[in-house]
């Protein structure tokens, strides 16, 4: 296990002076059994010396010149130990040195498994625990990965788009949203143990990185120890079972090595109802060591993952149905069927060339190609048919309501949202409540019935299954140079290119028994200015070049476009290591270009507004970082890191509504990130601790949201630009080995993540053409609101007992607080106070197609607007704090050449109900509406939606290695 950080010292030191000249000696024992360990490698890197221990576990190194050295003691499956010594004409006997079984051999497996199990990758809410997996020996990061992740805790409040994931040095973060798509390599855990994690913005040999850290997963056939591993896991969180088998050859005599892995994860239902899990993964790697200088490795990574999705729910729904409720599923002919699924299948092939130019210089060149698709399915309820007026004009009739069982008009709150409630309202509310409790699942029969009726009349489908497809083809090429130009100076450099050719479209995947679906926009409507002009025929078209198409299963419809993204970057870094001080400085420069190419000519955006190529966006970005570690002594270290860099906006945040048009976001800018952290690290035989303070500042961020709002009565895109925010806080991790078998640990994270300005916000919609709608000042008053980023405070107390007889158990108690819901920007804009009833919105919200047309609505404040009331209505909801206890334990046996083991975790053993996050709905956000909504005796109709944490769950893994 390679580690670049966190040299762990765990030894007992007896320093006995001898009269021999300049030698180092000692005896290495197993920390659990106190048996001598032979063939332990003891090396002094700076002196280029390496010896192994004899059968008594003893070693001795002679002939050292005076100086300061780092003694590295390593043996396979044991923790590496480093011990700094200073020799000045004398000998040092290090005495008995205890090596401990590499806890990560077992723990890593569990950590990765948990991560894999819980990385839901639901948009925007993915935990950022990915990068922490390998730093599990840092007590803070270990807690964040194991125990905090279930609450959406994000270390330092950072989204995982602020971290980088690499495989063999190639960046894997998606261009679309900057986030790693963990499903692309899920289920390969046993062959992903070799990971190099650089926390924060610290020095990294491969890439400039980002402030949430860089994680390089090394997947090379030659790097896997020879052996076979089989494991079986059972769980009730996201999947029910997992089987995995892998085999690796080690390096053969002829220089060939290979490794492969196959796994399957499956489950008809996770913790949340109706969330099936169906994933198959396959990995093959083959490497040839051509000679001492050259090796070539080839990988195929194929991870297919299909899951049933769940939905965030309101407090009312939670009260009626509980946290496991999922409105997306219902029984179809006796089988559970989920109406919203996600299907990810994006294989990766890569070639890696490793060239040892000299003993001190390496050049690693990689080519990777990723292809395949991501599909998200949902019900399309806008099926219509074409009817012709006697005068030849056409219109589209049909369509249905959103069929979700939790539609607001199905819930009791809706029936109790009227004034002057009487017995009848309560009776209706009661009926709705009973209906929802007893039959609150998706009604597939109704879908099929509607289509069957429609078909029998010779009409089109009313409902269809729509799959939103993202087909990415990405070529990545890079070359990574490293050279130790002196004993103290290491130079890194890399050149990277990444080209993405994407196609995004909706595909009709199920007609539910009908024969065809009319591809027009059911919601298209003429406004009072264009009434009678027969515009409807045009604006309703998804593609005016193929109007009124009847589509069937497998056809593309609704929208269809390509995206091209090209990113080229160069990185250089120098690392200096000296006895007292290590420091580094690095720089990065990149050019990013994006372009959309419309394949459908949208009826609302004719000609080049939607068809053909968009403007080409280009962003030039640079970054600088520097850091320093000062070693006060071997036991006390101080570490600083700082960075200043700019980041191109993601592809997904660059176009106003890529599904409909070529328009790019107004005043789109790169985000500037400034970050600083400082740590004090303590390493004594008894206590290890790290205390870190951090400060990160972001400016000119961009965000786009999509929703239907009654403010203006339209489906809108909310485009927020110029977002400034700041994260600062502290992290403390401390662990004490109170006895050789018992370890106590304590962890604290305290932070504050807030917006620091009032960003610009505007709205676009096909209802107003290319015009941009702003309210009042065109700002959203987000300043000092918290960025919804999981609990800002998390505390842990825990212990671990590690029995010499190869079993272990641990437990942690965790407290989380100060998590905030995501606030609606529309509600904090001037739209909140404007009485839209006083404004002729019918006439103002007309489509216009000027390049810079802007519609501004301002003034007309509600005449009953009360600042004090408003303040209450705009308060950001803070989620309740929660207290969660987790237990983990395991045991392993060695049977001849076989290692057999298991471990199990039980999370949230007290079955605590808690919310992990939530967001405000932007549907009814005017002042008076909010007064109504928030004063509703029986709860709001459009209340906040929440994500709930799991109740008590278990995970059990059995493994066999040989």
């Amino acid at each position, binding site marked *: 296990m390679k580690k670049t950080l966190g040299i762990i010292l765990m030894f007992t030191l007896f320093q006995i002076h001898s009269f021999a000249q300049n030698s180092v000696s000692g005896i290495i024992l197993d920390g659990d059994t106190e048996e001598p360990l032979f063939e332990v490698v003891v090396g002094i890197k700076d002196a280029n010396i390496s010896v192994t221990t004899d059968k008594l576990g003893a070693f001795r190194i002679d002939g050292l010149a005076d100086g300061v050295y780092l003694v590295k003691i390593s043996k396979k499956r044991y923790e590496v130990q480093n011990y700094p010594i200073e020799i000045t004409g004398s000998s040092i006997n290090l005495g008995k040195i205890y090596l401990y079984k590499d806890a990560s051999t077992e723990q890593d497996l569990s950590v990765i498994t948990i991560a894999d199990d819980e990385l839901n990758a639901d948009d925007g809410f993915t935990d950022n625990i990915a990068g922490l997996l390998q730093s599990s020996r840092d007590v803070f990061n270990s807690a964040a990965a194991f125990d905090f992740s279930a609450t959406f805790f994000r270390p330092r409040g950072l989204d995982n788009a602020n971290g980088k994931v690499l495989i063999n040095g190639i960046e894997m973060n998606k261009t679309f949203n900057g986030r790693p798509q963990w499903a692309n390599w899920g289920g390969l855990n046993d062959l992903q143990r070799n990971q190099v994690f650089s926390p924060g913005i610290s020095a990294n040999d491969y890439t400039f990185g980002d402030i949430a850290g860089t994680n390089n997963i090394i997947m090379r056939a030659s790097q896997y120890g020879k052996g076979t591993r089989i494991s079986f896991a059972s769980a009730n969180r996201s999947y029910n079972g997992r089987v995995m088998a892998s085999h690796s050859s080690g390096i053969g005599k002829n220089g060939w090595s290979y490794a492969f892995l196959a796994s399957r994860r499956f489950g008809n239902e996770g913790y949340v109802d109706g969330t099936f899990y169906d994933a198959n993964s396959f990995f093959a790697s083959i490497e040839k060591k051509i000679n001492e200088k050259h090796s070539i490795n080839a990988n195929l990574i194929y991870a297919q993952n299909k899951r049933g999705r769940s939905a965030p729910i309101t407090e009312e729904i939670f009260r009626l149905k509980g946290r496991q409720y999922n409105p997306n599923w219902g029984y179809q002919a006796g*089988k559970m069927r989920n109406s919203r699924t996600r299907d990810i299948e994006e294989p990766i092939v890569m070639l890696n060339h490793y060239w040892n130019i000299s003993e001190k210089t390496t050049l690693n060149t990689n080519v990777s190609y990723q292809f395949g698709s991501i599909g998200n399915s949902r019900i399309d309820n806008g099926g219509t048919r074409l009817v012709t007026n006697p005068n030849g004009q056409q219109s589209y*009739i049909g369509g249905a309501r959103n069929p979700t069982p939790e539609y607001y008009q199905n819930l009791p709150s809706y029936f109790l949202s009227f004034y002057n409630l009487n017995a009848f309202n309560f009776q209706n509310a009661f009926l709705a409540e009973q209906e929802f409790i007893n039959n609150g699942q998706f009604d597939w029969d109704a879908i099929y019935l509607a289509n069957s009726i429609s078909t029998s009349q010779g009409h089109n489908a009313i409902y269809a299954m729509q799959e939103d497809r993202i087909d990415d083809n990405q070529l990545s090429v890079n070359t990574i140079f490293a050279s130790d130009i002196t004993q103290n100076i290491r130079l890194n450099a890399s050149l990277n290119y990444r080209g993405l050719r994407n196609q995004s479209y909706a595909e009709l995947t199920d007609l539910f028994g009908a024969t065809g679906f009319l591809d027009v926009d059911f919601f298209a409507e003429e406004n009072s200015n264009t009434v009678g002009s027969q515009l409807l025929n045009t604006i309703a078209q998804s593609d005016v070049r193929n109007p009124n198409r009847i589509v069937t299963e497998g056809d593309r419809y609704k929208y269809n476009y390509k995206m091209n993204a090209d990113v080229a970057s160069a990185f250089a870094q120098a690392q200096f290591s000296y006895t007292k001080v290590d420091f580094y400085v690095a720089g990065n420069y990149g050019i990013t270009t994006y372009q959309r190419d419309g394949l459908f000519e949208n009826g609302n955006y004719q000609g080049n507004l939607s068809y053909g190529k968009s403007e080409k966006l280009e962003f030039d970005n640079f970054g600088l970082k520097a850091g320093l570690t000062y070693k006060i002594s071997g036991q006390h270290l101080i570490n600083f890191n700082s960075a200043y860099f700019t980041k191109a906006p993601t592809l997904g945040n660059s176009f106003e509504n890529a599904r409909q048009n070529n328009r790019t976001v107004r005043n789109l800018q790169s985000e500037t990130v400034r970050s600083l952290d400082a740590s004090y690290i303590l390493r004594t035989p008894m206590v290890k601790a790290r205390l870190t303070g951090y400060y990160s500042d972001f400016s000119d961020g961009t965000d786009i949201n999509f929703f239907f709002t009654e403010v203006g009565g339209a489906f809108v895109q909310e485009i927020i630009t110029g977002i400034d925010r700041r994260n600062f806080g502290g992290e403390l991790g401390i662990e004490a080995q109170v006895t050789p078998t018992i370890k106590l640990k304590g962890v604290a994270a305290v932070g504050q993540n807030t917006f620091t300005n009032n960003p610009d916000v505007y709205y676009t919609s096909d209802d107003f053409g290319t015009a941009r709608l702003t309210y009042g000042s065109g700002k959203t008053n987000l300043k000092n609101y918290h960025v919804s980023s999981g609990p800002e405070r998390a505390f842990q107390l825990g212990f671990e007992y590690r029995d010499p007889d190869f079993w272990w158990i641990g437990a942690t108690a965790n407290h989380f607080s100060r998590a905030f819901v995501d606030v609606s920007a529309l509600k904090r804009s001037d739209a909140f106070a404007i009485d839209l009833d006083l404004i002729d919105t019918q006439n103002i919200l007309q489509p216009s197609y000027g390049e810079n047309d802007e519609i501004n609505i301002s003034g007309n404040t509600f005449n009953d607007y009360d600042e004090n009331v408003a303040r209450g209505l705009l308060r950001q909801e803070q989620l309740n704090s929660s207290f969660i206890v987790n237990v983990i334990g395991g045991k392993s046996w060695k049977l001849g050449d076989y290692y057999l083991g298991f471990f199990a975790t039980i999370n949230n053993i007290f079955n605590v109900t808690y919310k992990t996050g939530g967001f405000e709905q932007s549907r009814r956000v005017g002042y008076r509406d909010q007064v109504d909504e928030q004063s509703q005796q029986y709860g709001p109709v459009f209340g906040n939606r929440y994500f709930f944490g799991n109740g008590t769950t278990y995970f059990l893994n059995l493994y066999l290695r040989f």
Partner: protein
Amino acid sequence: MKTNKIFQLTFLLIAFLSINSCVENNDFDTPNISVDPVVLGPNDVVLDIGAVIAEYNQRGEIFTYESLPQGNRYMTGYVVSSDEGGNFFEELVIQDKSENPSAGIVIQVDVSPLFTSYEFGRKIYVKLDGLSVNVSNGVVQVGVRNGDNLAKIPAPLRAQHIIRDSEIAEIIPLPVSISDFSEDKENLYIRLTDVQFSKAEIFTDLGRPLTYAGEALDQFDGERTLQSCADNSTVTFSTSTFSDFKSLLLPAGKGTVDGILTRDFFDDFYTVYVNSPEDINFDDENRCDPDVLDCTGPVSTSVVVFEEDFESITNEGQLDGMGWTNINVSGGSERYERNSFSGDSYLKISAFGTNEDPLEAWLVTPGIDMDNTTQEELSFNISTNFETGKILTAYITNNYTGDPLTTTWTELDANIPIGDSGFGDFVSSKINISCLDGTVHVAFKYLGADGGAETRYHIDDIKVTGM
């Protein structure tokens, strides 16, 4: 060798576990959605729609069907409304027979859409026990009781109250003429033959026909006028502003309309709703508009032949002595009155607040001598206020008998604007009358009703020029 065994073992283990790891997420069977004929129990009672209406008429107020000691009480009918086009909302109109129906009724249901379950022609059984009957918006309806009013059947109860039968009938529209409309034809699927939309709605100032319900003034429903070519009788044709076809233009020709006969929201008049524009079959492009005066050739303004701007009068009574005819012919007293605004005098007529239903009033100019001039042009200004229907018509004659009702009039193609809910502006009409000789009289006929079409018109600046 040993390795091989291990691989075999591994393979078997994986195979075994994989077999048990099937996930059901595709290959779903189509649900069974077939409908069986409704089978009633021995104690069940089936009522005709007519019987339900009769019971209401007998009681004269809202009533509720209580449960029977044994069995249930049902009403059957065929669905004739469809909310597919959005012209009906959360209601089903059913009639007792698919052909020659004799009674129809509305079922209020808090479910949308309904056409995806209860399509046009579907026979349904309505379990009446627990439901109430009342007249709402002028027609008999079934729903649930909320105080003294009728409310929609709550969605959770609809499955137990509205039961689909396997029969889907072909609905034959009932031929009816506008003059035969009566209470017993309400809620029936009828056919009007040889009808057209009124001329004023087809030939408008907008340069296009009106839309079904997409005009800025249309609130809740767009109300248009269907006119019988046979007898000039008219009926309101309503389209919801929530319908999918509201912004289509009214078709110009004439032919048949199949729709549901009902009453307007305020129960003031009969109106017809269609399920979709497909139910309008105007295959005859020729309209049956009355002939209007159609003179051609040049007109001139060099000589003023006749002019009246009403500035010299202070009371309409003064007109009586100036050769004008200003009379109410419907038995009431309301006639054209002098009025002024900002110093401008004009004549005003409105049925609003008159208690007259109908109100027919004529204004006829004094004789205008056309023999000494040529190239004559008639002009006048009209403003429309508080629009509730176009009820003013302009005529001309050169053979005035002194009684507008015995005179043979030729209609004028006048610009009578469609107003809104407030005051309107004067709009001028300029009509070529050069082909007339002798002494002509120009007339305005107002035909309205208090509480019904009661639009207020202002008439001013009547002028004839020539050379």
